[in-house]
C-alpha cells in the first residue's frame, strides 16, 4: 500500500506527498487524531497528490499519515440494498450510532448475517460470462439475481453451484473455472467502482416505449421512455421536488433509486416517513419495498455529494442487469455541479463559465449516458431511466448547468415561475418543454398501439390549441377584451380548459395525484370534444363565465375516482351544461 504525508489543507482539499505510485480517483484514509477520514484522489501533480476529503478536516494537521487503499470509490452490490437509507458513500444511515453524524463512522451497506433463500439458475458445467445470472433470491418482491462477477473476462465454466437453500451474502454460492484452470469462488456480493459504468450487457437500444408516470402533462404531452433521460430545471419553489416525489411514488418502475443530492434534509425525511406507509398502486406492496434512498443533504460533506449521484447510478445499473425497469431520480444535479466547482476553485484550476470547471459539460453528458434500455446477454431487457432536477441560479436557464444538461437529456420539463406564481401546478411550461422521444418512430408506434390510433394527432391538436390560446392572451393584453373578436375569447377559454383539466394536477389530492394512461386518454378525448365544438355566445363576458363552470365540472371529475358514481354524476352535469350553448349540427 502506498503511504503519504499531509502537506497542505484548504477546507476539504488536502495535499498529500507520496513516494510510491497512486492512481487517479484512488481512495485513501487520512489518519486524523480523532478519526480516519476517507478521501479520493482528484489530481496528481508529481509527488503531490490532491485529495478531496469526504468529511470535515477540522483539527487535521500537517504530517498526518495517509494510506492509499488501491481501489477507487466502490459500492457493495448484493441483496439487501432495497429499502435502505444510505449516505452518498453507501453507508447505512440507520445503523449509525447517535443523533449526530460522527465523522469517520463508516457502516456496512449490507446485512452480512441475514440469510437469503437462494435458488440456482445454472448448473455445473454451464458456461457463463460477466453479469450472467447464476441464481436468484427474493428481495422484497423482486427476484434479485446473483450475477457472475462483473470483472470476469471471457467465458468461465461452473465448477460448482450451491443448491437451493439459505445463505448469507458472504457464503460461497459458486465456483467458476477460467481458461488457465484458474478457480474463482463467488459469493452473493460484489464491489464495483461508482465512476465506471457497469456494462455486461449485449447492446444498448434506442428507447421505444413510454414509462408511465401518472402525471398528465408528462405522459400525455411529453412522455419519457423506459431507459430515457429527462431533466427538470426551475427556480426555487416552482415544484421540482414535489414533481420528483410524485414521479418516484407513481412511476411504473420495478425499482426506484432516489438520490437526494445537496438539498433539504426535511424533504428526505418526508420520503423516510411516507414510503413505508404508501402503497405502490400497481403491486399493492409498500413503496419503500422497491425504493433505495441515497441521502447526501446540503449540510453533509460536499465531496460526498458528488459521490452520491454516482453511488445511486451504480446501484441503478446493478438492478438493471437483473432485467428490471429501474428509475433513478436526482435532486438536484446543480448541487453536484457546485460541489465540483468548489473543488475546482480550491485547486485554482482555470475556471469556465460562472467559475464551473471547464469539463462540466463532458461530466454531465457522461453521467446521463449511463441511462438507457439494454438487451442483456440472455436476451432480457433492463433499463435505467434517469430524471434530474436543475436549480438554475436566479432562475435563469442560460447558465452552465442547465445548458450542459440540455445537451445531454432528451426530455426537458421546464418549470415556469409564472405558472408557479399562479399556482398552476405542476408548473411545467407546456410550450417550451419537450420530449425528443416523440420524434422516435418506434415510440410513436408503441404509443399508438398502447393508447389509440389517433393519439398522437390528439396530442398535437391539444398542443396547438395551447399555443394559440397563449397568442390570444397576448393579443388581449395589448388590445383589450373588446379589441379582439368573440371567437378569440372562445379559443382562449378552450385552451384554459386544457390547461386546468389536463395540464394542472393536484399532487396532494388522493385521487388526482395519479392519473393512469387509460384515464388520461379518456379525459383528453372529453376535453378535445369540447374544444372541437362550436358555441353560441353573444358577448365575451359570457364566455369566461360559461367555461369557468365547464372547468369546474371537469375538475370535479378529476377529483373523483375514475368511472365512480360521483365521476359519472359530474359528467352528466357537464353534458347538460354543454347543451346550453353548444351548436348542434344535424
Amino acid at each position: 500500500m502506498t503511504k503519504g504525508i499531509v502537506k497542505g489543507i484548504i477546507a476539504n482539499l488536502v495535499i498529500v506527498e507520496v513516494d510510491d505510485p497512486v492512481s487517479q480517483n484512488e481512495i485513501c484514509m487520512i489518519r486524523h487524531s480523532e478519526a480516519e477520514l476517507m478521501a479520493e484522489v482528484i489530481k496528481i501533480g508529481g509527488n503531490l497528490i490532491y485529495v478531496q476529503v469526504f468529511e470535515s478536516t477540522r483539527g487535521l494537521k500537517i504530517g498526518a499519515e495517509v494510506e492509499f487503499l488501491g481501489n477507487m470509490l466502490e459500492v457493495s452490490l448484493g441483496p439487501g440494498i432495497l429499502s435502505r437509507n444510505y449516505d452518498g458513500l453507501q453507508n447505512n444511515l440507520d445503523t449509525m450510532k447517535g443523533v449526530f453524524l460522527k465523522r469517520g463512522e463508516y457502516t456496512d451497506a449490507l446485512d452480512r448475517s441475514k440469510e437469503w433463500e437462494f435458488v440456482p439458475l445454472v448448473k455445473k458445467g454451464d458456461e457463463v460470462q460477466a453479469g450472467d445470472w447464476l441464481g436468484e433470491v427474493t428481495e422484497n418482491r423482486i427476484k434479485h439475481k446473483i450475477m457472475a462477477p462483473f470483472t470476469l473476462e471471457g467465458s468461465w465454466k461452473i465448477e460448482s453451484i450451491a443448491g437451493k437453500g439459505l445463505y448469507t451474502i458472504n457464503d460461497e454460492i459458486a465456483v467458476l473455472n477460467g481458461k488457465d484452470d484458474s478457480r474463482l469462488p463467488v459469493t452473493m456480493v460484489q464491489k464495483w467502482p461508482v465512476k465506471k459504468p457497469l456494462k455486461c450487457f449485449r447492446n444498448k437500444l434506442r428507447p421505444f416505449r413510454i414509462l408511465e408516470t401518472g402525471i398528465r402533462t408528462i405522459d400525455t404531452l411529453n412522455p419519457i421512455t423506459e431507459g430515457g433521460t429527462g431533466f427538470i430545471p426551475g427556480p426555487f419553489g416552482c415544484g421540482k421536488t414535489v414533481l420528483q416525489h410524485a414521479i418516484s411514488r407513481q412511476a411504473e418502475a420495478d425499482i426506484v433509486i432516489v438520490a437526494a443530492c445537496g438539498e433539504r434534509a426535511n424533504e428526505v425525511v418526508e420520503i423516510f416517513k411516507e414510503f413505508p406507509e404508501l402503497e405502490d398502486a400497481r403491486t399493492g406492496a409498500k413503496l419503500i419495498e422497491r425504493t433505495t434512498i441515497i441521502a447526501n443533504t446540503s449540510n453533509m460533506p460536499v465531496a460526498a455529494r458528488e459521490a452520491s449521484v454516482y453511488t445511486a447510478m451504480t446501484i441503478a445499473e446493478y438492478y438493471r442487469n437483473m432485467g428490471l425497469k429501474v428509475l433513478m431520480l436526482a435532486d438536484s444535479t446543480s448541487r453536484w455541479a457546485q460541489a465540483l466547482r468548489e473543488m475546482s476553485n480550491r485547486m485554482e484550476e482555470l475556471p469556465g463559465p460562472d467559475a464551473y470547471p471547464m469539463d462540466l459539460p463532458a461530466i454531465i453528458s457522461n453521467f446521463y449516458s449511463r441511462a438507457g434500455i439494454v438487451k442483456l446477454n440472455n436476451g432480457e431487457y433492463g433499463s435505467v431511466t434517469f430524471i434530474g432536477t436543475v436549480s438554475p441560479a436566479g432562475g435563469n436557464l442560460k447558465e452552465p448547468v442547465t445548458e450542459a444538461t440540455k445537451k445531454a437529456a432528451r426530455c426537458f420539463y421546464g418549470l415556469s415561475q409564472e405558472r408557479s406564481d399562479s399556482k398552476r401546478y405542476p408548473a411545467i411550461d407546456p410550450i417550451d418543454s419537450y420530449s425528443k422521444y416523440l420524434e422516435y418512430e418506434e415510440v410513436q408506434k408503441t404509443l399508438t398501439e398502447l393508447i389509440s390510433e389517433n393519439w398522437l394527432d390528439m396530442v398535437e391538436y391539444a398542443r396547438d390549441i395551447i399555443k394559440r390560446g397563449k397568442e390570444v392572451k397576448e393579443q388581449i393584453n395589448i388590445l383589450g377584451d373588446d379589441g379582439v373578436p368573440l371567437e378569440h375569447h372562445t379559443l382562449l377559454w378552450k385552451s384554459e380548459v386544457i390547461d386546468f383539466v389536463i395540464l394542472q394536477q393536484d399532487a396532494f389530492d388522493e385521487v388526482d395525484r395519479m392519473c393512469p394512461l387509460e384515464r388520461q386518454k379518456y379525459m383528453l378525448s372529453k376535453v378535445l370534444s369540447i374544444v372541437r365544438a362550436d358555441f353560441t355566445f353573444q358577448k365575451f363576458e359570457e364566455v369566461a363565465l360559461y367555461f369557468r363552470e365547464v372547468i369546474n365540472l371537469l375538475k370535479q371529475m378529476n377529483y373523483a375516482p375514475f368511472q365512480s358514481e360521483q365521476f359519472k354524476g359530474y359528467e352528466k352535469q357537464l353534458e347538460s351544461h354543454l347543451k346550453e350553448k353548444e351548436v348542434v349540427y344535424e
Partner: protein
Amino acid sequence: MNKKAFKKIYTKINQITKATCSLKADNVGYEELAIVDGRLAQVVKIMGNEITLQVFAGTEGIPTNGEVMFLGHPPTLRIGPDIEGRFLNAYGDPIDGGPELTGEEVEIGGPSVNPVRREQPSQLIATGIAGIDLNNTLVTGQKIPFFADPDQPFNQIMALVALRTDADKIILAGMGLSNDDYLFYKNTFENAGSLDRIIAFINTTEDPPVERLIVPDMALSTAEYYASEKKQKVLVLLTDMTLYADALSIVSNRMDQIPSKDSMPGSLYSDLAKIYEKAVQFPDGGSITIIAVTTLSGGDITHAIPDNTGYITEGQLFLRRDTDIGKVIVDPFRSLSRLKQLVIGKQTREDHPQVMNTAVRLYADAANARTKQENGFDLTNYDERALKFARDYTEELLAVDVNIKIDEMLDTGWRLMAKYFSKNEVGIREDLVNKYWPEVKK
C-alpha cells in the same frame, strides 16, 4: 478568550491582507483558533508550515512583528444555565454588563444530524398574522427567511412573531445589527417579561464585519444544546443574513478565490445550507426553528444571496408595502411556506387549503384586472368585484398588523368570497362550499 499557559508565541507575520494574515508555524490544526496581536483569528489554510489566518476583527494596524499564539482548539462557547437571558458578543463574551459565563466549554459548528434521526416537522406555529398563519403556515423545525427591502420593519415583525410563539427559548443572532435595532430587541424582550427565554449573540454595525461569521454557529450550537439535550422548542432569529454573506465574500475575495455570481464565493450555497440545515425536529419533542432575514436590494430575488437562500430554506415570507392600504403585507404571490402541507387541513380546519388557494387565486384575478385598468381597458363586472375583494382581503388578512386565530381567518376568507362572488365562481370542492358558505343577507 481564555489563554492557556505554555503556548509558543510567534512574532513573524509574512503577509497581511484586509481580513487575513500568514505566518510560518508548526503543529497547527485546521480551523484552530489563534490570537493575532490580541485579536481572535482562525486557521483557514495550511500549506506546509505556512499558515493563513482569518482575523475576525480585521487586520488594521497589525504589525509584521505582532504576537501570534495558537489556542489548540476550534471556536468554543461556554453553555450553562447562566447563559439564559444574556446578551453576548460574537465570541460569546457578555455585553450586558453581567458576569462572565461559567458553563461547560463546547465546540461550535459541530456535525449535522443524521437525516434518519430526524422527525418530520409537524407542530404548527401560530403567529396571529394571517399572511403567515393562513397563507404560509409555519411549523416547528422549519427554516424560513423574511425577504424584505432594508426599509421594511422586519426586525419589529420578527420580534413580534418570536414573542407570540410558545418557544421555550428564543435565540437572537444579530449580524450587522444597527445599535438602535439591538436596543429595540433588548427593550422589547425586557418589556415582554420574556428575558429568561432569550439568549442573544450580537454583532452590530460598529463591530468588524468578519466577526459576523461566527455568530450563526454560536447561536445554533446554543440552540442545539437546548433542543437536543434539554428537549426544548427553540426559535432562532438570524438577522441579517445578507450581511453575513457579505462578510463571507470579504474573506473569500481576500483569499484570492474565484468569485462566482454577484462576487459571492462559489461555496455560498454550502455555507448558507450549513447554517439553515441546523433547523430540525427531534423525535423526542425538541426542535430548532429558524426565522431569518435576508435583505434585498430593490426587491431583486435573483441576486445570489436571496437566490441561494430560497433554494435552501423551506419557503420565504416576502414583505412589501401595499400602496392601496398603506400597510406592510406578506405578499401572497412571492411568499411560500413549503411545510404548510404538513399541518393545514390536518391541525387546522379541513377547509384551510381550499380557502387559502382560492383567495390567492381571486387576488391574482384582481392583479390582472389592475393591469388591464392601468393599460386603459374596460373592466368587466367580474374584474370590478375581484378588485373590491382584493382590497378587503389585503386589509383584513394580508396586513401584518392582523392578530387573529386561524379559524377566524378562515371565516373571514369565506365571508369575503361570499360577499363578492357566487359559489361556482370560486370553484371550491362542493362539500366544503355546502358546509361553510355563509348565506349573505343582501
